[in-house]
């Protein structure tokens, strides 16, 4: 019974990811390119202004912001499917749960970002040099970050009554999660009083981990295991929030 349930859940999630990710990317490849614009613009800018040493920070920032952009970016999909296509209404009245829906969207975001992710990893390999271990950590952190930001994006978007309200919200969230905190720059540039809050943000936490394991920063504010545990806990918490607190079935 449990195996059947798990297999069915996987099918449901992949079904949505295929519909929302692969088919959409195939029919409109511009979307895939649009996901690359921000991280690659910053990479170019950093490279031109600061050469290779700043570009290394931009590569790590790019990896982090690509995951976060996918998570936050699904706010637009959620609001569109809820308010215009009424897909959410159809799927609420089906065996699909809020978690399936959110994971399907996150997975489709991951599929969308695959070309950019591979390209960014290539740059990382070239500029920083990646060991198997650091590659593994990057992938784990990327997935955790995608899931936690998808949890945030999904929960917020289910309360939005009109697609247009999502645009400013996602821009503000992107600024607050990707530009302001130490994602494209080392946390050591922050006043010490802001380091603690930065650790609690999934994006800056992830950036600290990646900057450290790729050798861009010599030490972390807390040990690596603690930072990974915080990110893991945040992922679980945001997934739980998306399941329990999102507006799936309306009240």
């Amino acid at each position, binding site marked *: 019974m449990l195996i059947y349930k798990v297999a069915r859940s996987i099918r449901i999630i992949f079904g949505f990811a295929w519909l929302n990710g692969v088919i*959409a990317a195939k029919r409109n490849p511009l979307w895939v390119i649009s996901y690359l614009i921000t991280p690659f613009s910053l990479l170019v800018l950093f490279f031109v202004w600061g050469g290779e040493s700043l570009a290394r920070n931009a590569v790590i920032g790019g990896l982090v912001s690509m995951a976060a952009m996918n998570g936050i970016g699904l706010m637009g999909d959620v609001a569109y*499917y809820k308010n215009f296509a009424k897909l959410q209404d159809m799927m609420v009245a089906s065996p699909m749960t809020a978690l399936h829906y959110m994971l399907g969207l996150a997975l489709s975001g991951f599929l969308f970002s695959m070309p950019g992710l591979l390209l960014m990893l290539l740059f990382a390999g070239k500029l920083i040099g990646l060991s198997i271990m650091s590659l593994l950590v990057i992938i784990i952190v990327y997935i955790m970050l995608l899931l936690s930001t998808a949890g945030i994006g999904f929960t917020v978007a289910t309360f939005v009554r009109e697609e247009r309200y999502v645009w400013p919200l996602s821009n503000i969230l992107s600024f607050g999660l990707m530009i302001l905190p130490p994602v494209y720059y080392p946390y050591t540039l922050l006043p010490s009083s802001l380091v603690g809050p930065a650790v609690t943000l999934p994006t800056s936490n992830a950036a600290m981990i990646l900057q450290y394991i790729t050798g861009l920063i010599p030490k972390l504010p807390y040990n690596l295991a603690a930072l990974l545990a915080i990110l893991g806990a945040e992922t679980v918490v945001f997934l739980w929030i998306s399941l329990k607190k999102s507006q799936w079935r*309306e009240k």
Partner: protein
Amino acid sequence: MLAAETVDLWKIYSRGAKRIEALRGVSVKISENTITSLLGRNGAGKTTFIRILGTQLLPTKGEAYVLGYDVVREASLVRERIAVLPQEAQPLMFPSPLEYVKYVLVMRGMSLSDAEKQSKSALEEMGIPRKYWNRSVWSLSGGYRRRVLLALLFAMNAELVFLDEPSIGLDPIARRSLWNKILSFRKRGITIILTTHYMEEAYILSDYVVVIHEGKVIGYDTPRNLVENLPVKYKVIVLNDCAELSKLKLDADFTVGSSPPYTLYYKQIENALEISRSLNVKDCNIKIEPVNLEDYLIIKTSG
């Protein structure tokens, strides 16, 4: 067994300081293997009622059961057995009709091979030409997009289907073809609960009609009985203003309209004919007709 049952069902929306009572103690029993239409004016509470039964919206108080399961406590069991087409739903932008139907079926837990088979036969059944199956849904006309949604809905193999204004945007021929489909699904044992503003549709399709007004059920019977039990039987529709009209309006049993067209209702055909004789037919431009379901709704919910 009952397909749906509600007992003193209430839904109150709170918007800031505002309290909107969308449903006010609705109690109905809907039998399995029937087609039941919910009728009412805009904002009457039809969609709220259908969304509570469809497990998309929580009631404020009262009880609601679908196929014997409580929609609040046993929602997951209800959701395995129902399918819903929300009002103004649209297919997704990029997939083709075949991809859209197939993958939404997979999203409901169907295997890929079953979903492929089901979607092809549903598209065929809804009369969507094969040449459209692999084009983007959004390159199709509004009517065909609506048919894609209906194909999806009927491919779901649900025991109970909720249709919220299913024929909006369909041309008269497509609408009739939809009626045939709906009737054929009832023959297969599927229960259908729908909302519509097309009275002809409700009259032709429905075994039963539930009339909701301001959150309360004000009529529940077969469409024929509802019409037959109206106190008036005939109506004179007056399309133009004319001299004798104001006096004649006083003689009518019920009048609707403060500007043309006016509808004057009468208990007896003789009264209606007498009125029509006394009016200058050419000037007034009148028609005499027996009352129908639309008149039921107008008489019971206007004023």
